[in-house]
């Protein structure tokens, strides 16, 4: 077994240069809350660890009509941040139900995305908010919709020479309400059995201008429930319509059985949680519209 090297560069260029040189043999390390487990289980055996901690990639800021979340921002930082609280309540909710305080203080946004678990809790709300990811390499920068980032469990389009530096989200329009619901086997330190994020942005007449529904842990990647979203688009919702849309969400789910839950249970939970998330999002969006 060979020894492993470690670096904690102070400049992004140096990190990118190392990535360019070592490619897949080098692994970025952020909070290490996923990486350590994968290394323990022998799934990953990097020769070089590139620690992001000195790169100041954890800013959370407003940039015109976009929100920029640094990839190195921890769940704890996101949870405490006033911009997140004001504009991205569903993301905040996901952070508050994320693991427990010690993991939240180490685990990062970027790590949660690049680890690409179908149960990753930050992904459904980020999809619901139309997030984009910024991928940097020595060759330059790419910006991709988050929806195009994941290709399978643990799989993304991130190239071996790239580092995820930032997540960018358009500021949600006035009249937006969103909700995240996590179903786990316990109330903290749980891996989602099913998770759902829903966002509704209402127009002046109370009609749905944007509907986003994202489902976690029921498919190889977090998925959007397009049919359910469409059923809401342009309509002023009522309880019946939300319920009907929730019923359509199941079509997007292709769950599997594992020791946490059976396929049948997961499938059955999708419409239940989607309905609840939509109801909460709708109520929040009407409130936002009234106050906006």
């Amino acid at each position, binding site marked *: 077994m060979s020894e492993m090297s470690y670096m904690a560069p102070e400049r992004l260029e140096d990190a990118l240069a190392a990535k360019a040189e070592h490619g897949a043999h080098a692994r970025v390390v952020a909070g290490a809350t996923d990486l350590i487990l994968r290394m323990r289980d022998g799934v990953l055996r990097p020769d070089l660890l590139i620690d992001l901690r000195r790169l100041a990639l954890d800013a959370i800021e407003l940039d015109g009509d976009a929100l920029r979340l640094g990839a190195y921002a921890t769940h704890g930082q996101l949870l405490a941040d006033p911009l997140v609280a004001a504009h991205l309540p569903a993301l905040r909710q996901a952070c508050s139900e994320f693991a427990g305080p010690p993991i939240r203080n180490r685990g990062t946004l970027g790590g949660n995305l690049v680890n690409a678990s179908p149960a990753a809790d930050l992904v459904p709300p980020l999809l619901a908010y139309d997030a984009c990811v910024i991928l940097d390499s020595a060759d330059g920068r790419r910006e991709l919709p988050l929806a195009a980032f994941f290709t399978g469990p643990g799989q993304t389009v991130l190239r071996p020479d790239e580092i995820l530096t930032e997540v960018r989200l358009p500021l949600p329009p006035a009249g937006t309400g969103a909700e995240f619901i996590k*179903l786990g086997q316990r109330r903290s330190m749980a891996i989602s059995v099913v998770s759902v994020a829903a966002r509704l942005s209402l127009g002046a007449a109370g009609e749905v201008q944007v509907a986003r529904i994202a489902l976690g842990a029921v498919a190889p990647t977090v998925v959007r429930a397009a049919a359910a979203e469409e059923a809401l688009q342009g309509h002023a919702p009522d309880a019946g319509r939300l319920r009907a849309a929730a019923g359509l969400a199941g079509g997007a789910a292709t769950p599997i059985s594992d020791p946490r839950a059976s396929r049948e249970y997961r499938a059955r939970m999708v419409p239940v949680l989607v309905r609840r998330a939509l109801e909460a999002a709708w109520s929040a969006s009407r409130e936002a519209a009234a106050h906006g």
Partner: protein
Amino acid sequence: MTAPAVVGRWVSAPGAAEIVTGDARYCPDIRLPGLLTGKLLYAPHPRARIARLDVGKARAIPGVHAVLTHADIPGENSYLYAEPDQPLLAEDEVRFQGDAVAAVAAEDERTAAAALAAIEVEYEPLPGVFDPLEAMREDAPRIVAGEDNVIMREVYRTGDVEAAFAAADVVVENTYRTRWAEHAFLETEGAVAQLDDEGVLTVYSSCQAPHRDRMQIARALGLPESRVRVVTPYIGGAFGGKDEAHVQMHAALLAHAARRPVRLIRDRRESILTHVKRHPITVECATAASRDGRILAVRARAIADAGPYTNATYEVVNKFGEFIGGPYRVENLEVEKIGVRTNNPISGAFRGFGAPQAAFVYESQMDDVARELGMDPLELRLLNGVETGTRMYTGVVVRAGDAMKASLRRAAELIGWQGRTAQERQPAPQLRRGWGMATILKGSGLGRGLGDHAGVVLEMHRDASVVLRSGAADMGQGIVTVMAQLAAERLGVEYDAVRVVRADTAQAPDAGASCASRQAMVSGNAVLAAADSIRATLLGLAARKLRRDQAELDLRAGEVWADGEPSGLTVRELAERASAWGYPLHAEHVSHFEYPPDVPEASYRFSQEVFQFCTQVAQVLVDCETGQVQVERLVAVHDAGRMINPGGVYGQIEGGLAQGIGYALTEELVVSEGRTLNPSLENYVIPMALDIPALEMDVLEFPEPVGGPLGAKGIAESPIIPTAPAIRNAILDAVGQPLYELPMTAERVLAALDRAAPGAEDG
């Protein structure tokens, strides 16, 4: 005598500060010069023949100091909890996923791992037997050659069960299933072994039974016990899972072979895959009752899955049968107890020895009977509960039995049982709230006829400081604290004047295993007796000095008291005198737990007779769409006989409640064809702080006349026992649907709801 000064006081455990700051040394913290890393190679199949085993390449790796197979074991190749049917290292066959095939010791972790990888084993997988019913068939393959797959099959009968069922107004009959549960102790199993220049093998052992470990180590190495010493460092929990030895013999064998100290620690995955689990038991149970609510008879048949080896199956299944009638006056009872070998995970001791499974059955039956009769579950229990003087279905006469109904009444009062119906039962369309109770008894001590004894050595020095040496392992349950308090109490010194030497076979006599809620009782009695003999010497000296009658004197807080006042004469002065004049302030005592000779011939075998009574009441909120259950309130009222260390008593209850919530709702080892699919604490779901409500606890003191010191009974096991049935009955109350399987996962709750006819939930 005056009121106790140290007993009954909240004191902190010796070493509490070290434990909290991380300075306390557990097995993995032990550093010795030249320490090697030990590792075991475990079977990749639940059942396979070993066609070839070649360790040549592993031995050739530089830095590898020993590679052992069964052929290298100088003594007996078996564990010996009960029957010697579990090999330390498999010979020609592996019988479950936790069987070890080879042991290595190497310079470091990596080299040890490389050595394991270089061991060549050819397995011929054999069809496993994973269903106990299948294992019981005549034509089933023998799990252990030459041994019957049925480890035990016994029937206990009392009264006229047939007649009672024939005369019953109501019969409730159900089949229950429980699953494997994992102890999830903080510290996994480990041992460090070192051979010294004099040929003495010292083994630091994270264990519950140091003297039995010593015997097993000596037996495996073919050494006299005089050359083996077992020392217990701090131990991070056990709950029965370290009652049987685990890697102590392997570490010792490796250290002996390598002539270097060896540390062998199981990682979490290995720990979950290898050590014993709570027995899964399938139970058919029928309860007969009269219309006015008297329980007339109980009939049960239980089949427990032992895994391949005997281990504690006899004890567990026997205790299951002993408590299947619950704390009730049941005159007619029949229980058939069966323990069967399979190629599943091995089962064994876990807090309660079969009593939690029994309680899930009998307390569920009680609520089902109450429903059938339209009776309040509390009333039904009060009507049938035992009292002081009741002769149980086991033949045992209950002594401090009034604790049973007192705990029921107090728990009902704390939860507000009478006013509960006024509470909101449906706070949202999909939510249902309910209340459920369970009341249980559990015996303390090994049981009649099993030689339950413990020794202790006590010594007071000339400065009145005290050393107490006991073989009782403290795994965190606090026996060390209790012993120090008892010694301080009787010797009239402050609690912190007593130093307890952590169990070390070279220093202390055998105290037996820390199991069966027995140590506070049995070792506690031994401490009192030893302290009383030193006390007598001190009081004799004091009487002479003060020219008073001994009987008028007392020792308290470092002084001699006379007529309820301090006399000015200190215990220290007495100790100095004793030392100067050559009076020994040294005592050794072996206490035997004596059972009164009042059980009839045909009584239950190995019955326990000192009973921990308790009642727990749960308030739950059930989400009828997701099946999730939230425990909103949990009331626990326990009888401790007499609290020696209240903090310890409450600590045991808190921990038991948390463990009980897990056993009730989420803790399940998912096993398929002999393989555990969730051998990690990510996926074996124990409750965390947010899953546990603020616990509402109360402790009663009904002193046990033939129990432990000052009337104390054990408290270690009872807390986990009623939790699952209390929650089950609360779910039943909330949604109107009974569950018969543990754990009551969200999916199982939904399945129960699905069984309900539409609209029936409001009935």
